[in-house]
């Protein structure tokens, strides 16, 4: 209880609340602008938080993360263009509701059910995080290595069409993570005699480059001439009791399913919302309305968007395994704050776990107030010119990369990561495995070597003779093989060629 009180005290400090509000505001702006992602928002704002205590820094980042995902639904509903990939499924029903003169109701559903999904998954985080962390305390080097491989393989299997391409960027990320001092013997590797490289490649500048600069360049290449956007009349926002009752089962189903999906590394809000929309359509009494302006369909997708966040945070905080790209950056930020996500976080810094849970709740309270109270202002957020936002992202990316270590080399890392991000995007290489491999590389390598050293004559058998390690490795193998088998089966049925 003392830890909880300590956490609440840190969270309710005026500066922490201010950071949270700034984060929510920035998230709304970036989330509401089509094409700019929550990952980009968190990446470019991370350097602004290094000077703050962890609670304040996390307040801003969690505010950005949650609000950007929620705000992505605003343009999805009003102009049929998702603000973030997570709100793609909101375009299935949202615009149709807006077109029949109920734009306010659609925005209200977006706010209410995003908050519901987010709070539901936060509740699950609060319930399951501590037991999972306690269980994970039993893990040895073999289990940690298997966990890293499982996380990487899951990320590869869900984040792109081609498993081989995902694996290649994963191996590339692992090799990049080996630049610097060897984690066990401090032997310099791939440093070319430069002492600046002894600490390795800074994770945050690479993330900023991949998701900030790379995203902007991609947007420039794919942008269309801006057309005049007509904002529909907003009208009433709050659903009636009958409407709430009708949406209830779909929202509850989506909240539970999306929280589980969120906990799977690599599966984000986009996948969860599409799955939940489809599944609730099957369960609905009025499936024919789905896709034509169903409030149930919209409630399901909006719940799922934010419902994944708690699940993703659970995996990240308890096992040190990021659920998606945003949680990968959050993981990097926690490490920068001197906190190591994983079971030890719950043993040594349990107050931070409470801080995160409390901040999530507060972020959703802020979103609810802003969403229902200022929707008429918010709908104008996506009227900001994209070019101005791109310019801001470019300068924030450069200065943010430099500011972390006051090191110009980090700006070069950011620059090259930006170009790499653009090229990889164009050729269908997923960025998620690269980021995850860069982050998990040192952990995977040191545990792999520790396990082998401890195993002595048993050698690599140690990974298959320990039950948890074996299960994780089997799941990892299945996650890579299953999509290929599925593709081949589809190809046989439809006569389409397969990309391994």
């Amino acid at each position, binding site marked *: 209880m003392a830890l909880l009180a300590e956490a609440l005290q840190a969270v309710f400090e005026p500066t922490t609340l201010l950071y949270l509000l700034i984060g929510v505001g920035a998230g709304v702006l970036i989330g509401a602008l089509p094409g700019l992602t929550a990952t980009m928002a968190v990446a470019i704002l991370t350097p*602004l938080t*290094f*000077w703050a205590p962890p609670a304040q820094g996390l307040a801003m980042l969690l505010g950005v993360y949650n609000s950007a995902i929620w705000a992505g639904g605003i343009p999805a509903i009003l102009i049929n263009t998702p603000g973030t990939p997570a709100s793609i499924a909101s375009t299935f029903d949202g615009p149709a509701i807006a077109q029949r003169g109920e734009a306010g109701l659609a925005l209200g559903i977006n706010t209410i059910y995003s908050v519901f999904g987010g709070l539901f998954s936060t509740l699950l985080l609060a319930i399951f995080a501590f037991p999972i962390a306690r269980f994970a305390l039993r893990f040895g080097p073999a289990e940690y290595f298997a966990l890293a491989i499982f996380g990487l393989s899951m990320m590869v299997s869900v984040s792109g069409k*081609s498993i*081989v*391409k995902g*694996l*290649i960027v994963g*191996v*590339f990320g692992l*090799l990049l993570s*080996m630049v610097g001092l*060897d984690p*066990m*013997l401090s*032997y310099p*590797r*791939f440093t070319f005699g430069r002492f600046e490289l002894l600490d390795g490649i800074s994770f945050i500048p690479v993330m900023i480059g991949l998701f900030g600069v790379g995203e*902007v*360049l991609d947007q*420039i*290449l*794919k*942008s269309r001439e801006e057309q005049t956007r007509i904002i529909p009349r907003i009208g009433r926002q709050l659903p009636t009791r009958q409407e709430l009752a009708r949406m209830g089962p779909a929202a509850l189903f989506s909240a539970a399913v999306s929280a589980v999906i969120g906990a799977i590394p690599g599966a984000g809000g986009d996948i969860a919302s599409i799955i939940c929309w489809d599944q609730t359509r099957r369960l609905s009494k009025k499936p024919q309305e789905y896709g034509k302006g169903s409030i149930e369909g919209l409630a399901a997708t909006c719940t799922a968007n934010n419902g994944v966040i708690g699940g993703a945070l659970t995996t990240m905080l308890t096992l040190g395994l990021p659920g998606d790209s945003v949680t990968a950056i959050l993981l990097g930020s926690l490490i920068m704050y001197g906190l190591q996500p994983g079971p030890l976080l719950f043993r040594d810094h349990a107050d931070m776990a409470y801080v995160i849970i409390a901040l999530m709740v507060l972020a959703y309270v802020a979103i609810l107030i802003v969403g229902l109270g200022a929707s008429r202002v918010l709908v104008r957020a996506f009227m900001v*010119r994209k*070019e*101005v936002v*791109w*310019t*801001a992202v*470019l*300068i*924030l990316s*450069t*200065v943010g990369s*430099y*500011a972390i270590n*006051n090191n*110009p080399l980090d*700006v*070069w890392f950011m*620059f090259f990561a*930006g*170009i790499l991000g*653009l090229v990889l995007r*164009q*050729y*269908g290489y997923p960025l998620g495995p690269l980021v995850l491999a860069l982050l998990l590389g040192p952990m995977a*390598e040191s545990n*792999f*070597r520790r396990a*082998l*050293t401890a*195993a002595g*004559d048993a*050698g690599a058998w140690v990974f298959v003779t320990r039950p948890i390690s074996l299960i994780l490795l089997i799941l990892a193998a299945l996650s890579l093989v299953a999509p290929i088998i599925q593709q081949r089966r589809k190809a046989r049925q439809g006569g389409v*060629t*397969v*990309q*391994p």
Partner: protein
Amino acid sequence: MLNADVVAALLWTLLLGATYWLTLDFPPGPAGVPGPGYVPRLLVVVGLVLAVFLFRSGRRGQVEAVNWRAFGKDRLLRAGGVVGLLFLYTLLWGRVHWAVLSTGFLFLVGLVLKLRAPVALATAVGLSVTLYWLFRGVFHVML
């Protein structure tokens, strides 16, 4: 004709070759105790297997090549212009006063992105001054 995957597989193989050559300096460690060179070499082997798969997939022509021309000359020029300016900006980092360099960079980026000159200038000055105040004044970053 070589498609994107075949070229990528060849480039990846070259990169792995160079990586392997660099790992020759790292001690592999005695039997049963992997040293600093063990995992990088293992990754090179895994990478080579993947390169073979990518090469085969490319030879079968299963991948649609990216048609950069489809983006249009205008957008390619804009993206190229931004990359060039960002390269120059990174190169001049620390050699010119940050606020001056950033204002110039942002103004030119604004023009490349076809913002009207007054809007580009206002955006450039506004962002540079604000970020300079924030990072230099508040966070004490050595800009």
